């Protein structure tokens, strides 16, 4: 499915002293099967934008379209099932005694039968690589394991689009790697992923397309290559290094991720 935002504005607490304009006319689309990276500093409107993708927040003005139809016309439950949204620190919303039961919450809410619920729960735990933790109490898990359990809880709905808001925040490098692996796996299986992050390196690694937010508006959009080489100030360190090397060795190409950069450099020095 394709989600597009058309000139979306969002104002918090309108008409009061606390009025804040969080989105200023954002137009953007999430294409089927792609990984879209949304980057930007704190307060740039990333999270607010994410919450519009399944209308948990409604635009103050502008439209959200799902496959060309106004998303407001869709049933809320239907939309939330098709667009899975995982907020920042989702482990804070774990509530069931065991991992299994927590992950089973969403499919149960969908009204599925016991076998289907079990099947989806097991599958989601498998994708996140935590099948062995199914019967453990949620509170007994490490931070990284809790995070994955929470993401499995949304994945169990089998969404067509999975929105992850800062999924790696506060995680150790290993859990981080594994989560990025999950993103790649989901993409291979045809699920679109929207990855909201402020970590340029990780976004560079998995995104097909990037959207850079600033002050509630889209500042730049395109493939990671276009965005990073278009404005080096927005690029991760590896790209900045590659760009410097290119000045004297144009044959380097325009690598984006760490691995790509390494490969290009190797090829360049004939190693």
């Amino acid at each position, binding site marked *: 499915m394709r989600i597009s935002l058309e000139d979306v504005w969002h104002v918090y607490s309108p008409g009061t002293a606390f009025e804040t304009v969080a989105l200023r006319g954002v137009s953007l689309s999430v294409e089927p099967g792609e990984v879209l990276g949304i980057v930007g500093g704190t307060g740039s409107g990333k999270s607010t934008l994410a*919450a519009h993708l399944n209308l948990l927040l409604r635009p103050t003005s502008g439209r959200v379209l799902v496959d060309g139809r106004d998303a407001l016309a869709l049933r809320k439950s239907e939309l939330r099932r098709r667009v899975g949204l995982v907020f920042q620190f989702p482990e804070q919303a774990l509530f069931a005694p065991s991992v299994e039961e927590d992950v089973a*919450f969403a499919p149960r809410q969908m009204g599925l039968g016991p076998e289907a619920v079990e099947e989806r729960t097991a599958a989601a735990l498998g994708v996140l690589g935590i099948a062995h933790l199914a019967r453990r109490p949620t509170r007994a898990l490490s931070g990284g394991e809790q995070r994955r359990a929470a993401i499995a809880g949304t994945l169990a709905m089998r969404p067509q689009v999975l929105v992850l808001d800062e999924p790696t925040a506060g995680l150790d490098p290993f859990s981080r790697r594994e989560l990025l692996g999950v993103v790649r796996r989901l993409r291979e299986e045809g699920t679109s992923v929207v990855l909201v992050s402020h970590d340029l390196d990780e976004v560079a690694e998995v995104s097909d397309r990037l959207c850079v937010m600033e002050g509630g508006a889209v500042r730049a959009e395109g493939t990671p290559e276009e965005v990073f080489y278009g404005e080096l100030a927005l690029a991760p360190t590896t790209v900045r290094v590659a760009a410097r090397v290119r000045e004297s060795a144009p044959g380097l190409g325009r690598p984006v991720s760490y691995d790509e950069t390494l490969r290009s450099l190797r090829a360049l020095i004939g190693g």
Partner: protein
Amino acid sequence: MAPGAGRGTGQFYPADSPLHALDPRAKILAVAALVVGLFLVDSVAGFLAVGAALLCLVQVSRVPPSTFLRLLRPVAVIVAFTALFQVAFVREGEVVFGLWVFQAHSEGLRLAAHLALRILLLVAAAALLTATTPPLSLSDGIEDLLSPLKRFRFPAHEIAMMMTIALRFIPTLHEEARKIIMAQAARGADFTEGGLIQRVRALVPVLVPLTVGAFRRADELAEAMESRGYRGGEGRTRYRELSFRGRDATALCIAVLIPVGGILL
């Protein structure tokens, strides 16, 4: 910022007004006087007079009246119910009108009006205090007013600190509840459908993480306070000293005169 971060109602509204500038102790005593006074007022005209005076104060406070209306709306429901009961069940005085099996008696109508006006004015007065006084000043004021009791080992500072913390965490918990509600809604939780039992059950996924979070926060806060050397009220000085000036005394006199006027009417 998290999506949807906003402010609840009934909180401090920053503005530059004479009411904001008053000493919190003066404002607390003024509200106390108003509250006591309101229980002595015994005529609709009196209530209306107090109401008019409060409206003037709202004007002076520069807090938009809509803030108060939002706060009064939920109270209005309770008030309406209570008033309705008075009208339906008080059987003194002459019958004014009848509806189906109910008959409205003059005494019931009088009591209903008094009760409704009294509650609304009480809430409005309290709202005016919290809207114009930052929570920290408010608890400073309370601590100061309670401090004579310290002689009897009354923990005035600790009570005030507990109130400060409680007040400080209302918006935090409110925000956290909102986040958890959104997170569970994203997983298909539905808080608006079904009967009473279903709705209560729907709250479990919200209340469990909220409680766990509250305890975690309490632990963290206690540690943060201790690591910065907090050891209770003994020998503790204040960053901002309160000072009771002439204008505070004047304001207090006016606050006492408002209900007195209402009582006399």
